[in-house]
């Protein structure tokens, strides 16, 4: 683990520079250990790192560093909590997945095979981030990896199921975005009245269930 100050009120804890399930486990553990600690304002988990924001009037960089090391050591024997399992119904292709044909072309597979592979895998929510509670999913079958669009769309519809490079994701709110859209879900992934509003959380296991007429 490497530790760097990111600002006068935050420290960045990094676990190597490779996106992997092991890195996710370490990221999730640090986040869990530091939730609700006095003087810690926010935790920003990502693929291989966690940014810890603290109140600089209550804590120093050195204190936060030793607090994290202490709590990580104390948690070593703890088994991680059982993950939640969620199923996401998806209508693939056609107007719901305008980039499905491009993904098939890029991967050399048929559209039906892309859908089959995408829906057969189990995904892990590596973290939730960016600007709109976006869940970053690990577990995309490697043969489905497809580069992002060269120019992002100005408007991606809410619930769009997408591939961005080797990662998978779902847009919980309508927003701009550059990932390839292969389907859409009607499931509400962001509920303003819920605490917290996003349905998917770090560590959740996700499966996509094809529904309705696939428009291939």
């Amino acid at each position, binding site marked *: 683990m490497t530790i*760097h*100050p*990111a*600002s*006068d*009120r*935050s420290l*960045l804890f*990094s676990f190597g*520079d490779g*996106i992997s399930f092991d890195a996710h486990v370490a990221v999730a553990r640090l*986040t869990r250990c530091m*939730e*609700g600690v006095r003087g810690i*304002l*926010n*935790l*920003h*988990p*990502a*693929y*291989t*790192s*966690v*940014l810890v*924001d603290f109140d*600089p*009037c209550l804590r120093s*960089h050195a204190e936060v560093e030793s607090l994290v090391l202490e709590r990580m050591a104390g948690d070593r024997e703890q088994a991680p909590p059982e993950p939640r399992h969620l199923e996401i119904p998806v209508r693939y292709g056609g107007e719901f997945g305008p980039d499905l044909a491009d993904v098939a072309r890029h991967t050399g597979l048929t559209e039906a095979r892309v859908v089959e592979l995408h829906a057969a895998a189990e995904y892990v929510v590596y*973290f*939730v*981030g*960016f*600007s*709109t*509670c*976006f869940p*970053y999913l690990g577990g995309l079958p490697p043969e489905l990896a497809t580069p992002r669009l060269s120019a992002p769309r100005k408007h991606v519809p809410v619930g769009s199921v997408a591939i961005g490079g080797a990662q998978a994701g779902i847009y919980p*709110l309508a927003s701009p975005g550059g990932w390839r859209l292969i389907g859409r879900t009607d499931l509400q992934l*962001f509920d*303003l009245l819920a*605490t*917290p*509003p*996003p349905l998917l*959380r*770090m560590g959740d296991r996700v499966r996509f269930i094809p529904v309705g007429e696939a428009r291939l």
Partner: protein
Amino acid sequence: MSNFHVIAPGFLTTVQDLGRFGYAHFGISASGAADALALRAGNLLVGNAANAAALEMTLTGGEFVFESGAVIALTGSDFGSSVAMWQPVEIRPGETVRCGAARNGARCYLAVRGGLDVPRTMGSASVHVMTGVGGRPLRRGDVLGIGSAAVRRPRKPARGVPVHDGMACLRATAGPQAAWFGAELYSGSYRVSEESNRMGIRLLGPALPSPGGHMITEGVPLGAIQTPPDGQPIVLFVEHQTTGGYPKPANVISADFWRLGQLRPRDEVRFEQVTMEGALGLLRDQEEWLYSL
């Protein structure tokens, strides 16, 4: 219960406190007052806890009728109100408080003794404008309740108040990818773009050279200066994304966050590098001023 009516909301007026903390790992940044120093000062002046909910007005102020009277303080930028700024002012029953266009800076705060009595979402009254978490900007006809959460007597007028005059020198500490950059950020002069908002302040000026390093998306703090491929820096602001994939040569210091909240389009911005110790010293001085109120 005492309340006041919104006759005109102004360009963008929202309820803010110091922000909603503890939800970044669900993808929700803190939001909160863009000039938290002015919001805290306003609250302390009327005898509230520093974190009480108050109104944040942006570029153009609103018009409010106080049916039952109140004690208020206007802080931040001068929006041409007849109410004297940076001091507690007694508003008579039926009196109207009018604010106009910003004369300097971008944001003016209206704190009310007792605080605004508004619902809290996940522990905060702050409106997160981009997602709608915490509510929406004020509209004509809204009625806001005045709470009874004052904690001490109103204070004397503030002295030595921070003033923004259209040119900001932002102090910054080295960012996580500082080693990838030279000192270009600190030599150029930038202008605030019209496309700036509570998510980010976009700057226009000499492009920073694209660094060669390989970046994996990581958590980003308030005030991070990120550099997209076009080299035009973006300073992440109170409603910033929680993670980002652009390299960050520097981070604006906490003691200068209030200046970010007062920047308006076309203002000039320069950066000056300070050490971590220097940044924390400046923050201590600012806190001392605040608690001298």
